[in-house]
């Protein structure tokens, strides 16, 4: 017996499992979620309207001696937020001289950049690592965050983070969100393939050497996912 959960914005397997008191892998690997697993492949990224089967909690008994300390491990490990901070995409047109040198530094990880990350009131300060990565443990159902780069300087820059709201790249909203995050601005994430999204797609395709069509074809979506979601 299991419940069905209809995915809402901000949901992911970790959050759904957390609410049910289960490890995320228990939910994700449940036989009734096989079709969803094949369709989405990544438990972190579900689409609004997806159906997740949430198994009932099962009790498990272990016998141990009294007056002793015993350690029980919870499977799965903590949920994390992993952000990679990069320089902006390459220029749209050719550059020369000093600007060409700047262009070469673009689209590279921003290493050792000071930041403050606030997720649901929990503050973390630090610098990006050698690959531009910021990583922290979060509650599985954390929804809101704020990242401030170079805090306290004239270059301070703040980004509101909407946790769990990245949709699969198969959805147009997932395409748009990734384009925006990668600096190929397409405006509001509304799921509509309009002129700004076409233009952003053309720029992205040009930057990665794909045929420039402005269309969100399978090849473009795969490259977009690789560029955004993978190290």
């Amino acid at each position, binding site marked *: 017996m299991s419940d069905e959960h209809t995915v809402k914005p901000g949901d992911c397997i970790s959050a759904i499992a957390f609410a049910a008191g289960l490890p995320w892998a228990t939910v994700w690997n449940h036989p009734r979620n096989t079709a969803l697993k094949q369709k989405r492949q990544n438990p972190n990224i579900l689409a609004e309207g997806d159906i997740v089967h949430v198994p009932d909690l099962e009790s498990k008994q272990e016998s141990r001696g009294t007056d002793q300390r015993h350690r029980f491990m919870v499977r799965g490990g903590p949920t994390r937020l992993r952000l*990679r901070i990069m320089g*902006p995409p390459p*220029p*749209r047109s050719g*550059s020369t001289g000093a*600007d060409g040198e700047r262009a070469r530094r*673009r689209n590279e990880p921003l290493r050792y950049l000071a930041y403050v990350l606030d997720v649901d009131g929990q503050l973390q300060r630090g610098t990006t690592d050698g690959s531009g990565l910021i990583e922290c443990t979060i509650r599985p159902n954390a929804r809101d965050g704020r990242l401030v780069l170079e805090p306290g300087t*004239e270059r301070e820059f703040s980004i509101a983070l909407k946790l769990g709201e990245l949709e699969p790249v198969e959805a147009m909203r997932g395409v748009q969100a990734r384009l925006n995050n990668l*600096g190929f601005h397409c405006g509001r994430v509304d799921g509509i393939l309009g002129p700004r999204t076409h233009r952003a797609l053309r720029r992205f395709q040009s930057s990665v050497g794909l045929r420039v069509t402005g269309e969100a074809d399978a090849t473009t979506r795969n490259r977009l996912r690789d560029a955004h979601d993978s190290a």
Partner: protein
Amino acid sequence: MGEAEARVARTAGGLTHLNTLAPAVVRLRLFDPFTGPMPRARYRVTLADRTIEGHADAAAWVEFRVLEIPETCVVEWDDDEAPALVVDDPDPPPGSRPESPAEKYIDPAWVGPVAEPPTAVTDTYRYKQEVYLELEVDDEEAAFRRLHNLGFTLGETLKEHIREFEKAYDRMAAGELRGVQDTLWDWHDTGGVSRCTRPRALA
């Protein structure tokens, strides 16, 4: 436009998925009325969602991040001195204000710098200018925006703006885009603007 916002995914324990954020960088270069760079110039940039204040670097460049590039922004700047209240005196004494426009270069959307003159005196900054940041438009509009940013805004038509540009650099004033396009794009997008051979009129 609201605050910069990014939709990101959480990463379940044991997995390695990440989210990549690549904010755009806008670059501006602040110039005095005689097209000399203004190192350490005070500036204020007003975007739809925020205001940025600070000082240009030693080469007069200003750089800031945005997640989404707006179509325009307003830039105000002045020497690196304590701000003085400027009263709108209809008949200022000679030499109290610049007689030719300052120029500013901006590098919107990592394309390269653009330039433009000040068009107003503000309460705490000597120069103020609205700047086009969105330059990915058709050629004629792109030329118009670059000329505007470079300070050539007299007249009604693009042809007139081009002629103004040509005259400022002792070129034959043909008013044809193809005659100035390469130079205009290069100067605007790289910051390598030459000094005018004659002062330009204020808009």
